[in-house]
């Protein structure tokens, strides 16, 4: 029988006794007196309370105890004593057993609903998927179910339809609403060659795309998997409740027995009133509130952040965020757009660019691709190269037409010559936040290429939000100090650590950890170690898979302002966990002594019925407080008062 049915039965059979209790002062009595009460309560015990008793016994045989142990012992004690009292013509309290059962079940009915509310959010994400799609098979478009789509399929998407899986547009243009996956509310325009995400909604154009990821590999599936893991993860703060829950119930039982003994043996109370105090102790104690405090808040908090495009991987990260004092940023692709462009070429433009392109065309470095792109647009003829060699951390060199040609950063300058006029130009360019690449032949610099990577237009706001929160911001980059300083000044970052070799990033993070917990925000492969070392690693969603794997928080939208939102949400969730735990502890710490009758002398005491009501609502209130996290306001900008 379901909890709801058990609740209704016990409510209906309790009502006559409630009427009896309320109307007694007015001279109305329940017809049949004690006998009617006995029959009503027996029905409740047999139907609604027996499952508590069964569960309590099953766990007792395994040396365990739970909530049900307390409810079972409390109600059965009241019930059996009342039968004894009836036989010996003393006052009975059948209604205690009946009301406690009703209230506990009422609490469980609500709680069950709330718990389902808390956990359902992510499962709804999966329902967002398209059910079928029009796929090109043997030259014709046919409608097939989602599960039959394979990688490489060409799929047509008409206006208003959902994109079935992840892929790349092969034909057509459109704007797509990606809010369900990325949290980005503005529709994004897409053309041939752009990536599309499964489950997003096509708005106005028709396009064809090639499926690249299907089934469990799609972005949505990955997100769902990640969020599920996060929601069920363990926060370190829970270790405390784990310990408490193991000893909670037996301890309460011992306290209840002591309560009875103290009242009966030392204070000379009657058996009945001593027993009422003991039963109240058993019934008011609520280990469930303690157990539910953390998981429910974690579930709602991580679920809500996922909807905003912020994936918090687990409870540990959430807890670590709370103590973060410093936020460290990678520069390229994190603070800046990550698409550098050539702005100036100093020297013989054609010669400089052709040499640089020859050496850089096989590199995947973003600066290299900027050079290659620029050369392509100017139709530069690229010479043959041989004996290609990398100069660790400095650049590359090779033979072109029998001459040793090299391209690299300013660390090369210690080995080669550069005239003063060029040197001055370098400084000017760098102060304009342009990265300077040096091109040389036979130990002499023949020209410069200035490359600029502009900050994202949201970076400045993002940094000022974090500073308003009282956090220190630091930029960590392999780029030249002058360039880094110029970018830092544009976006308002506090301090800069420049000229850092990729392999040293993690060490710098470690050094900064001496002054308190740090968060590191990055996107590249070279950021992975730093993301792992930092107390909180925040990976940009556009970043490489390895960076996303290493980060504790992933920002799907790639918007730097989400760093602040992620911190705000984590803090809010963690504070809610603390509030829940505090409430659950305080409730038990205050409730048990009151129920035991310690404050009886000043007229404060609790009947078992009220204790049962209090118990039911303490766990309900914890779950409700967690669900309310969904509604809590997230202030992304903390203003100083």
């Amino acid at each position, binding site marked *: 029988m379901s909890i709801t049915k058990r609740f209704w039965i016990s409510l209906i059979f309790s009502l006559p006794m409630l009427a009896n209790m309320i109307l007694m002062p007015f001279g109305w009595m329940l017809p049949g007196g004690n006998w009617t009460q006995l029959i009503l309560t027996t029905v409740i015990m047999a139907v609604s309370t027996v499952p508590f008793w069964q569960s309590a016994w099953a766990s007792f045989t395994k040396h365990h105890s739970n909530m049900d142990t307390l409810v079972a012992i409390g109600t059965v004690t009241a019930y059996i004593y009342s039968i004894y009292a009836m036989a010996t013509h003393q006052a009975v309290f059948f209604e205690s057993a009946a009301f406690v059962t009703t209230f506990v079940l009422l609490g469980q009915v609500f709680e069950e609903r709330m718990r389902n509310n808390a956990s359902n959010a992510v499962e709804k994400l999966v329902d967002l998927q398209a059910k079928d799609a029009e796929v090109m098979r043997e030259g014709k478009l046919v409608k097939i179910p989602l599960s039959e789509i394979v990688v490489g399929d060409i799929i047509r998407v008409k206006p208003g339809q959902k994109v079935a899986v992840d892929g790349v547009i092969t034909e057509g243009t459109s704007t797509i609403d990606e809010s369900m996956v990325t949290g980005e509310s503005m529709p994004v325009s897409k053309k041939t060659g752009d990536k599309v995400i499964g489950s997003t909604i096509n708005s106005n154009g028709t396009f064809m795309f090639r499926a690249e990821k299907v089934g469990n590999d799609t972005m949505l599936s990955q997100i769902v*998997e990640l969020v599920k893991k996060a929601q*069920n993860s363990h926060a370190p703060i829970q270790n405390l409740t784990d310990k408490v829950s193991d000893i909670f119930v037996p301890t309460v039982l011992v306290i209840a027995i002591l309560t009875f003994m103290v009242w009966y043996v030392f204070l000379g109370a009657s058996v009945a009133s001593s027993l009422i105090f003991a039963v109240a102790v058993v019934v008011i104690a609520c280990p469930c509130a303690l157990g539910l405090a953390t998981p429910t808040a974690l579930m709602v908090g991580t679920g809500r952040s996922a909807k905003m495009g912020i994936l918090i991987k687990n409870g540990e990260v959430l807890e670590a965020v709370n103590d973060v004092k410093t936020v460290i940023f990678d520069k390229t692709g994190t603070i800046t757009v990550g698409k550098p462009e050539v702005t100036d070429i100093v020297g013989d433009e054609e010669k400089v660019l052709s040499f640089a392109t020859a050496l850089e065309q096989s590199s995947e470095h973003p600066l290299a691709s900027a050079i290659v792109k620029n050369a392509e647009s100017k139709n530069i003829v690229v010479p043959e190269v041989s004996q290609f060699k990398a100069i660790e951390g400095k650049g590359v060199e090779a033979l072109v037409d029998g001459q040793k040609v090299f391209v690299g950063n300013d660390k090369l300058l210690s080995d080669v010559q550069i005239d003063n006029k060029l040197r001055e130009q370098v400084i000017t360019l760098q102060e304009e936040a342009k990265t300077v690449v040096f091109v040389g032949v036979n130990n002499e610099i023949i020209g410069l290429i200035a490359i600029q990577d502009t900050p994202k237009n949201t970076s400045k706001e993002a940094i000022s939000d974090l500073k308003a929160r009282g956090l220190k911001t630091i930029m960590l980059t392999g780029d030249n100090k002058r360039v880094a300083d110029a970018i830092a000044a544009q976006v308002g970052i506090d301090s800069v650590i420049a000229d850092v070799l990729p392999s040293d990033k993690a060490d710098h993070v470690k050094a900064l950890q001496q002054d308190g917990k740090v968060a590191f925000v990055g996107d590249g492969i070279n950021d992975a170690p730093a993301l792992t070392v930092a107390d909180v690693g925040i990976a940009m969603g556009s970043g490489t898979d390895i960076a996303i794997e290493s980060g504790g928080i992933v920002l799907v939208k790639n918007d730097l302002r989400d760093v602040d939102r992620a911190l705000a949400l984590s803090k809010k969730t963690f504070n809610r966990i603390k509030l829940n735990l505090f409430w659950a502890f305080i409730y038990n710490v205050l409730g048990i002594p009151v129920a035991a009758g310690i404050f009886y002398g000043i007229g404060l005491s609790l009947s078992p019925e009220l204790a049962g009501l209090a118990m039911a609502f303490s766990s309900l209130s914890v779950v409700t407080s967690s669900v309310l996290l969904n509604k809590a306001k997230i202030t992304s900008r903390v203003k100083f008062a």
Partner: protein
Amino acid sequence: MAKILVSIVGLAVIGFIVWWFFGKHEVSEVSADVSNNAQSVDVEVNGGYSPETIVLKKGVPATLNFTRKDKSSCLDRVVFSDFGINEALPINQKEAIKIDTSKSGEYQWACGMDMFHGKLIIK
């Protein structure tokens, strides 16, 4: 006289509670049988989990079949926090839960309220 009797019985019951719940008691442990590159263990959920400790072989796909016989809402979900699993256990219904055994180690599982615990050892 009654008071002395109550005191003695009360203390005896307290003693029993402490011994019964806090004393060292053997925990049922079961190793999975491996056949045809698969392993499975049936877990009965009734006032806790039996067996409470399960040993699985590393690298062999594993299924744990949970059957809840207990009506208590305390046990209506089973959570493996390390694997991101949070399954509802409908009463008297066998619920198969697949476990990724690629990494060895000791993992906890718990009921939805984190009151009852079980241990999973993969080696």
